[in-house]
């Protein structure tokens, strides 16, 4: 750990990596909370995996892969959202199909692009140490878009997340806000792919918010705690992986997964104790 702190002072790439992790945790806290309470983790997984199609195509045609990722994520979000809203019966099958088809398209493009085979691993599992400094600005801009949108539309978002039928009766344009929410999920996925890659995205999107949900019972509170937890997991994961030279992304995920497991057990134990205390109190 000490070695990491020393190196952090010396190497700009480590500072960039740390900042990238912290920027990503803002998205994972704010949007991850919606993903958890609305129970759309499977949809988020579909969006994340189909992003490979956009990245592959962007590489093949020589465009910035991040732009490819962002457009593929938004396209899939709108497609999945429309299916969910207007064609409910086959929802899970169709998401599963998009999930796999997106990846297949990406892998075909990457196979036909000369010299990029090594990048496949960093798309899939992320490489936070290779984030270029200019991408920090891109990430910061995405964060700003996320936070502004959620702040301006907080009440309709809450209504659509909580009770779609009632929101519709109150004149909230439910389809619009549902699709907008999925687009924000898409933007967050692209943010997090920088850090942990598209396969592991789903863990950072759900685990911090789920842990927060064990202890706080308001959406705003969950967002704040999940952001702090996300920041802790990315920073600590980076630090722990540095000395033994482990890949940073999987270290972060294992850390988040272990804390989630412990927290689930702890919160259950606390609930039992409280219930017993209530039952025996005089």
């Amino acid at each position, binding site marked *: 750990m000490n070695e990491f702190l020393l190196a952090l002072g010396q190497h700009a790439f480590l500072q960039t990596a740390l900042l990238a992790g912290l920027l990503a945790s803002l998205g994972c806290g704010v949007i991850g909370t919606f993903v958890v309470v609305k129970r759309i983790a499977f949809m988020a997984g579909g969006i994340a995996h189909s992003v490979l199609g956009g990245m592959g195509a962007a590489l093949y045609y020589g465009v910035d892969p991040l732009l490819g990722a962002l457009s593929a994520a938004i396209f899939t979000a709108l497609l999945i959202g429309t299916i969910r809203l207007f064609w409910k019966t086959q929802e899970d099958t169709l998401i599963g199909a998009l999930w796999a088809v997106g990846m297949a398209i990406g892998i075909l493009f990457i196979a036909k692009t000369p010299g990029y085979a090594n990048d496949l691993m960093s798309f899939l599992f992320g490489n936070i140490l290779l984030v270029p400094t200019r991408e920090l600005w891109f990430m910061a801009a995405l964060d700003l878009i996320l936070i502004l949108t959620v702040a301006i*539309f*907080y009440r309709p978002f809450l209504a659509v997340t*909580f*009770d779609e039928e*009632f*929101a519709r*009766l109150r004149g909230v344009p439910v389809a619009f806000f549902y699709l907008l929410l999925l687009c924000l999920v898409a933007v967050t996925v692209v943010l997090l792919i920088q850090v942990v890659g598209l396969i592991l995205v789903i863990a950072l999107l759900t685990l911090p918010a789920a842990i927060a949900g064990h202890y706080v019972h308001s959406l705003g509170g969950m967002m704040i705690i999940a952001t702090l937890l996300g920041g802790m997991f990315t920073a600590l994961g980076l630090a722990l992986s540095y000395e033994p030279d482990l890949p940073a992304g999987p270290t972060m995920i294992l850390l988040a997964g272990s804390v989630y497991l412990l927290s689930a057990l702890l919160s259950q134990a606390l609930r039992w104790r409280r219930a017993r205390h209530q039952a025996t109190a005089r």
Partner: protein
Amino acid sequence: MTTVPAILVEDLSFSYGDSRVLEQIQLSIAPREFVGLVGPNAGGKSTLLKLILGLLKPQAGRIQVLGQTPRQAARRIGYVPQFPSFPRDFPISVEQVVVMGRLGIGSMLGWQRKVDRDAARHALQEVDALDLARRRIGTLSGGQLQRVLLARALTGEPEILILDEPTANIDQRVESDVFALLATLNQHLTILLVSHDIAFISDYVSRVACLNRTLICHGTTEVNSDAIQQLYGSHVRLVAHRH
């Protein structure tokens, strides 16, 4: 000039796939009427409510609510569902749930305003549930939740109140409290109430509409064994009881 009916249903029919649920429904509810809608399960009660609320579109016939289409008028209706259409473990307080009933009044953008919070607390007080304001929605009992849902409907300043089986999970003492409250609200609101318990609601309502695919209206004094047999079939016995 005649007054515009609060709810006007003309020649309405509706089917799910092959099964016809509603057939040639005619119903006109005047402002400040208190109408009870009764009928057996699967008789089309919830479907008729959904059509009046604009959640479903009529396939034949037409519906007008306060002189507008159901979609336009939805915000002027307060709706209390039989089963909450939200997950009970959602991290939200009772007060925040009730505040949501204010959506559609003023702008939806930005943070919640103090007037909305005050209106929510006032509505909670009206249903005698102000002490629950800070509780998490998932910790309420069935009866408490029902009152909170009523507060959410009232806080939107409705002109019509529609309740679907509001007393299904409530014990009798609370039930008569709820009906006393509805009787007070009825002084300025039109009320349409769905119930399976004809004998009980006939003490309160001005008119009973009996729905089993087709709809027949009765004044409360006319609900007798003939009407009930026609509605439920011959095996039902009418037991006269007073509470």
